[in-house]
């Protein structure tokens, strides 16, 4: 018996002018998985990520969610299917309080008291109680990241796509974020695009390495991270 992958891409391709940012990528993630996407700058992982989330419509190929093609759908439709997105620069409502931010996310699928209950839970889980009534625009970068994570969790997605969740965080915040990611992975599948190798080592189980618009290697973290080709393209280039 074969199971349908949670997210699958077939021959996914994106051209910008004459540049092929992503070329014929076949990729799949199973239900409940935690997958990291890594690769040097310009490897095409951000473009790939944006096609998964519907922010970019692929030039060719398709993205499937539980077997249904989703490329070309509206972003809100993709969100309603159960794909949650956390962007690199926190995408939150700066002019609203943390509580109002979370309320909006919870109100999409819930009604009445259930909204308040879910918001309260999220505030506890993300330890946002002391800052719940402050405008998100006034919060520190790391706190904004967590508010955004709360927004995403409250829409009750099946899978969450995280774009560089540790970017710009302090060491303490990074450690907490890694713990959070494992915690979230108990109930949600996760796809994490990341740059920071220390962070990758903390969270990674399976890794897909992008290079020049294609998948270079894919497999368990320990094997991929010790792969010579990965060191060459990724670590080598970073050191250069």
């Amino acid at each position, binding site marked *: 018996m074969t199971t349908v992958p949670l997210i699958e891409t077939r021959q996914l391709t994106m051209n910008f002018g004459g540049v092929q940012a992503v070329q014929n990528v076949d990729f799949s993630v199973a239900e409940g998985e935690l997958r990291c996407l890594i690769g040097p700058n310009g490897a095409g992982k951000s473009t790939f990520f944006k096609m998964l989330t519907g922010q970019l419509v692929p030039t060719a190929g398709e993205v499937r969610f539980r077997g249904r093609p989703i490329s070309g759908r509206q972003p809100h439709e993709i969100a309603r299917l159960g794909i949650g997105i956390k962007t690199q620069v926190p995408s939150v409502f*700066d*002019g609203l309080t943390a509580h109002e931010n979370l309320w909006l996310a919870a109100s*999409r699928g819930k009604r009445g008291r259930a909204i308040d209950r879910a918001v309260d839970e999220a505030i506890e889980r993300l330890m946002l109680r002391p800052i719940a009534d402050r405008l998100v*625009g006034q919060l520190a970068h790391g706190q904004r990241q967590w508010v955004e994570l709360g927004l995403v969790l409250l829409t009750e997605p099946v899978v969450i796509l995280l774009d560089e969740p540790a970017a710009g965080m302090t060491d303490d915040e990074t450690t907490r974020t890694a713990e959070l990611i494992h915690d979230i992975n108990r109930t949600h599948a996760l796809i994490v695009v990341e740059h920071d190798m220390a962070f990758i080592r903390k969270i990674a189980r399976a890794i897909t390495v992008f290079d020049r618009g294609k998948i270079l290697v894919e497999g368990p973290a320990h094997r991929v991270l010790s792969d010579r080709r990965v060191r060459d393209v990724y670590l080598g280039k970073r050191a250069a």
Partner: protein
Amino acid sequence: MSVGRVVSYGVPAVIGLALLIGLPQLLDLFVLLQVTLYVVMAILALSLAFVWGYGGILCLGQSAFFGLGAYAYAITAFNIGESSLPVVIAILLPTLFAAALGYLMFYGRISEVYVGVITLTVTLILFNAVNSTASPEYRIGSALIGGYNGLPNVPSLNFPFDPDNTLQPDDVYMVAMATLLIVYFGIRWILRTRFGRVLVAIRENERRVEFIGFDARLHKLAAFALGAGIAGAAGCLFVNWGSYVSPTIFSMIQSAQIIIWVMVGGVGTLIGPILGAVALSWLTAEVGTQHVINADILFGGILIVFVLLVPRGLVPMLTEHVWSRVMQPRRKVAVAAKLAAPGGRA
């Protein structure tokens, strides 16, 4: 209900009702007529205050809906000879027109600034089109459109389904004032619903709203159409105020006036645009009778000065000033950024 909530709804309700009932007793007819006009303009200002200040939609052509409402009322009233249905049409036609226009703009995902240019262009072209319909071949049913001559002697409002019983000037005032109160509290109610909150969230960050799973396009379309309906109602009342309508209702200066009221009063507030509309309409009337300074120079100058120096408008500036001085001397109030947001994000 908290004390704050009671005060924030109760005070305007008491003032509004006092004005509604009191002014016809206190003022002579001429002044009451003037006040009626200011009230109509306040309703028009609220329509844009909602669309721009809360929906973040940069509509520069709100007068298109105002004018459509006015013409729709006038033409159907001439044809039907009774005002109940014309009132409905005066609200419905601009709403539907805005829905169609909004569909093309928001579902085409054109940028915010293009929305401004297109709404303005629609107004300009409506002006040019209606202006050049003076010859008798342009008629809808029994009503001549009249071109630049306009439509005089428009039948005034009557009590519903009772065509012989028309409203007197103080009745028209009460209808206008009641409409203003309904619109004001209606918008406040909408802003507390999920729809209203999502709308404000779209103003803050449209992409995140979509990532959460709300259809931003649909929300903007609904807000735009609702604002147009309110403007249409104001247009209907405007015709009744003067029993006359001409294409200048679509003119650049009329469109600009609405923007200026909202801008001067404060984008992102409701009371600011009401006060702005009343104060500046009064100023328009004064300038018109005194001939000291050209009205275009005055209002153009006001707009330039506010954009450059007071972009958030007077009400947010004053309330914040009072707030930070009196209530919490040391807290820095950052509501500023929030209130200035719709313009600032362009």
